[in-house]
């Protein structure tokens, strides 16, 4: 197995996630794209852990998984709050911070 095959797969996943964050308007779908990005990063951690024969990558990947779970919980709480106040979760309608 090449090192690069895993890193390139992670790069593809990362770019698809970035596309999703840019292109999507629905807040839940944007959160799903962020999950794609986080998984790409985790794949890199594990690939480098095997390449270097080190445990640090595994530890960090586990921490990233925990942080991602917390992020989804708070993110969906925010989305529910926005929905309750606006009756929409379209990110284009949340434009108060536009100058």
């Amino acid at each position, binding site marked *: 197995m090449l090192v690069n095959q895993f890193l390139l797969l992670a790069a593809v996943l990362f770019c698809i996630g970035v596309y999703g964050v840019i*292109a999507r308007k629905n807040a839940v779908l944007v959160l799903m794209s962020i*999950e794609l990005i986080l998984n790409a990063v985790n794949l890199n951690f594990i690939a480098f852990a095997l390449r270097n024969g080190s445990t640090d990558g595994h530890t960090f990947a586990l921490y990233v998984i925990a942080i991602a*779970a917390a992020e989804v919980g708070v993110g969906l709480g925010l989305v529910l709050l926005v929905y309750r106040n606006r009756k929409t979760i379209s990110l284009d309608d949340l434009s108060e911070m536009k100058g």
Partner: protein
Amino acid sequence: MIAQNIGFAIIAAVMIIAAVRVVTTSNVVHAALWLVVVLSGVAAQYILLAAEFVAVTQVLVYIGAVMVLFLFGTMLTRSRIGRDSGLNNTYWKLGIPVALVLFAAMAVALVNSFGDERMPTDDNIVSTQQVSDQIFGPYLLPFWALSFVLLAAVIGAIVLARKD
């Protein structure tokens, strides 16, 4: 070695197709289900990379918990369960060149840095015991911090989503 590469190629192809469907499908529930395929593929890649504990955690946390959260989020925000044409931005086409340029930059950097370097053969596989020794040894303080982050996130989510 050959079997590993064939397995990698099949799983990677399925993952990429599923990931593209996540960001292009016009149905929120279908996007969540395609995301399950991507996350299972990532878990399979972890097993290929000899990280079985991380793979099991991936299945438990992502496919088990995070996916249920996403489906509840879809349900509670009353997104259209069927097809929905209003999921993309007006300027969604801008994302395609951004993603392609980003991928080209990363691919050039990776190919230049690692070329055709191979993974080491299996003489230094990391065991789950070593991972736990690491977490509860040198990385104990981040582990504590992480438990407080999770506690804060749970309380925060309840406070945010509470009625009145």
